[in-house]
């Protein structure tokens, strides 16, 4: 690929138990539209990187056995320079629950995990797009100031966590809507809806909107 055609970088926040179908599409669609993809996580001081595994997916050859996908991440979320990126995607399944680990809970103090601190900064940056899908709003639930009054959609199982965090879940005829854009926050319901590609396309459209 000719590097001068690159329009920018997208950061994907990831941890163990990520959704492999979303991962495949992030890696396919963003580069085809001119965006590099960086995987970002909290590395607990491991400079060489950490290997994370996905939730199991069907083996592409046997179609029966379930296999895990492994990725190595060497970018620490606490070191991310926001201006290097056009936007950040929070991958679905259970990964974002792990990134909000609060090592020292203190009454009245907002979540101090590196990923939540990063999001507080990122979501205060006008024009910087944040994409969430399925269960990934969990990361924002860790600090309700990030979700209060925001219009979003999410997986059925997440509705109450998200509402308890003060967000306004958008409903359609069959539960939460498939896709919703509220300013710089773009949310999608569930990869099982076949929404992921449309979600990525819409995310890019919002980035490129003048």
């Amino acid at each position, binding site marked *: 690929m000719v590097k001068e055609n690159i329009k920018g970088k997208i950061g994907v926040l990831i941890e163990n138990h990520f959704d492999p179908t979303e991962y495949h599409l992030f890696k396919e669609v963003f580069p085809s539209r001119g965006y590099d993809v960086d995987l970002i996580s909290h590395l607990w001081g491991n400079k060489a990187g950490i290997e994370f595994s996905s939730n199991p997916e069907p083996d592409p050859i046997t179609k029966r056995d379930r296999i895990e996908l492994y990725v190595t991440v060497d970018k620490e979320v606490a070191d991310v320079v926001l201006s290097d990126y056009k936007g950040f995607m929070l991958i679905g399944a*259970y990964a974002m*629950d*792990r990134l*909000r*680990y*609060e*090592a020292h*809970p203190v*009454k009245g103090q907002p*979540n101090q995990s590196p990923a939540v601190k990063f999001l507080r900064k990122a979501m205060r940056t006008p024009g910087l797009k944040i994409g969430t899908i399925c*269960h990934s709003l969990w990361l924002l*639930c*860790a*600090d*309700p100031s990030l979700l209060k009054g925001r219009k979003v959609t999410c997986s*059925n*199982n997440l*509705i*109450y*966590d998200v509402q*308890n*965090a*003060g967000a306004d879940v958008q*409903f359609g005829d069959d*539960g939460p809507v498939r896709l919703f854009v509220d300013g710089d926050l773009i949310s999608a319901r569930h990869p099982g809806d076949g929404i992921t590609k449309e979600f990525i396309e819409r995310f890019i459209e919002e980035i490129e909107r003048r």
Partner: protein
Amino acid sequence: MSLKGKKIAILLESDYCEHEIWYYKNRFAEEEADVVFMTRLWGYESLTFKGHDHQVPFVCNQSFEGKDGKEMDEDELNRLSAIIVPSGFVADRLRYTEDLSKLPPATAFMKRAFANRTILKGLICHGLWLLAPTPNVIRGRRVVAHNNLHGDVINMGAEFVDEDVVVDGDLVTARTGDHCHLFARRIIDLLHERHSYSG
């Protein structure tokens, strides 16, 4: 003194933590309690779940729902001495519902259990997620959960207590699946105390 005649229900779904569930199965049996694993059977005779860490199958053939998808009979519910919502992603899976106009059946079951203070409620690690659709039952109560759920607990209106096991009346909570032995120990002690009150 044993726990003979006490019935302990443990809710189950896939992504349960093997070492934890096996520990309860044996530890409560050692006290001679009657341990039953309950799930939503979706009309099947039994369902086989897979563990989170080693994908070990676990067959579950009892339901917290009554016949024909109705809720559990009041007498049957009141015969339970304790209900445990375990760690892993059991609670997230059990709160799935196809009918968003009603509480998920597992949450509705817990809400009824909270209305009866003689039933001990034990929730550990990520188990508190099951109560998110009905946060009133733990509003203002002292609980602990996995540190990942710190925000969820506060968003539900409960008080997050930074200890490995927390008792608040008929509610026992513990931090992670790795604390299952301390959690089980406390539940056994509380059931003994309750046993002696009732003679």
